[in-house]
């Protein structure tokens, strides 16, 4: 009975804790990878503490700062289709440096010839929702409730869905038209610095720019980690408390079921077992139970998150965000997480079972058996 209680409690707790920890680390790692490929610096325009459109004329000033290699204007925002919100990206097609994109499943990526022609490349989520393929036309409603017709020239692959599922990529001219954005303004600037320069140093040189907010990769990454870390941390704390509770249950079971245990111990000592032998037996028993329940719990937690997208738990981590069916949660199992979970399960279990065993073992065997029989 005692073993069953320990196994079930530890199994449930470790499954939940591991699912959240592995998912949180996967999301953080995914964000880390994306941030690494983000521009060295992103320059936005602040007015009264709010982010607004940035004047294009800033590009020339930023390009003149020592250490700046390239300044690329971007227009991007969100478009609603049905109950979903999609990310619309307007690219300066003349500044695209690559000619082939492995992330395209069918069709092609944008080229400089697509500027202002209404050609778009879309992700799997929107393609599935609207049931469109390469060569089809789609009509998107803008915020100003005007219909905009676009021609699908490319479709992103399933493999790239974690990055592209909700994307609609078009030329910057088309994005300007779609968002009805005034000429001479863009959403922000992607700034790339020379290899020999530190982005933070270049950012410092831009401090003379009025109303500018400059984000570097480190700030972006810290922002993501703060969001996931805080949310995941709260949840893990709650479940760790439960684990401590489970350890107390184990302790309680060891004491309450002590009558039987005392008799066993008395019998063993009569047969010549020493106190150390008895503690050793309990230690091995706890290790077996602890490793069995915790390892199984972590495997179940991994399967629950990686193959079933952690229903119930994922909402806690993502809040109002949703996970498109098109891709699976990024799950990362780090050694740190695995050993941390072992540390908060196996060690308390050992302590809470070995201590009562020691208390029983130091009692006189005859007295122990008499008391147990009474």
């Amino acid at each position, binding site marked *: 009975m005692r073993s069953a209680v320990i196994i079930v409690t530890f199994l449930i707790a470790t499954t939940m804790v591991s699912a959240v920890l592995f998912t949180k680390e996967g999301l953080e790692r995914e*964000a880390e*990878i*994306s*941030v690494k*490929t*983000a521009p060295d610096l*992103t320059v936005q325009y*602040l007015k009264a503490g709010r982010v607004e459109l940035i004047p294009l004329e800033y590009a020339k000033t930023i390009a003149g700062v020592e250490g700046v290699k390239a300044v690329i204007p971007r227009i991007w925002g969100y478009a609603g289709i049905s109950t*979903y*919100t*999609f990310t619309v990206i307007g690219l300066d097609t003349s500044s695209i*440096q*690559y000619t082939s*994109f*492995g*992330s395209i499943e069918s069709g092609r*990526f944008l080229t400089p010839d697509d500027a202002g022609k209404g050609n778009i490349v879309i992700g799997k989520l929107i393609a599935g929702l609207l049931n469109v393929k390469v060569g089809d036309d789609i009509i998107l409603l803008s915020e100003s409730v005007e219909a905009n017709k676009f021609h699908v020239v490319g479709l992103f692959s399933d493999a*790239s869905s974690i*990055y*592209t*599922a909700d*994307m609609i*990529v078009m030329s910057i001219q088309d994005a300007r038209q779609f968002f009805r954005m005034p000429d001479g303004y863009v959403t922000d600037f*992607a700034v790339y610095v020379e290899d020999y320069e530190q982005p933070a140093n270049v*950012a*410092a*040189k*831009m401090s003379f720019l009025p109303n500018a*907010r*400059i*984000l570097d990769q480190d700030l*972006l990454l*810290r*922002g*993501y*980690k*703060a*969001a*996931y870390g*805080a*949310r995941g941390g709260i949840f893990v704390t709650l479940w760790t408390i439960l684990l401590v509770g489970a350890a107390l249950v184990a302790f309680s079971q060891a004491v309450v079921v002590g009558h039987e245990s005392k008799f066993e111990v008395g019998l063993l000592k009569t047969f010549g077992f020493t106190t150390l032998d008895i503690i050793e037996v309990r230690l091995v028993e706890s290790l*077996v*139970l602890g*490793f*069995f329940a915790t*390892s199984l719990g972590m*495997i179940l937690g*991994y399967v629950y998150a990686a193959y079933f997208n952690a229903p119930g738990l994922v909402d806690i981590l*993502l*809040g*109002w*965000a*949703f*996970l*498109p069916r098109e*891709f699976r949660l990024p799950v*990362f*199992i*780090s*050694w740190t997480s695995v050993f941390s979970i072992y540390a908060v399960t196996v060690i308390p279990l050992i302590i809470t079972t070995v201590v009562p065993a020691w208390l029983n073992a130091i009692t006189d065997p005859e007295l122990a058996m008499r008391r147990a029989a009474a």
Partner: protein
Amino acid sequence: MKKIYFMPIMAIILTSALMLTCITNQVSWQSREYFKELRYTIGLPSIAIGTNYEGTRNPLLEVFVRSLYDIPGGYDYVVPSSFIDTPLKLKDYHESVPGFNLTTRRG
């Protein structure tokens, strides 16, 4: 197999299986295709976690949301955190999230 050996053997098998899963998972992350050319071209750091929430411009909620809302592509990441506590009280947010305290951060 004797019944007494069942639990110890299962514990060893499950622990080994977990270690194997851990190694496999880490190798798969290392060998994963990240489509660097695409991410570099697009330049937005977020992954495609979408949002059903349409009130991000609610003046009250924006106080919470803006801590990451304004980061390129990060429009929804702060929302999971907004239920924990008022971010204004959290030192971590105040210091680590760019632009949260409404001051311009340069360099």
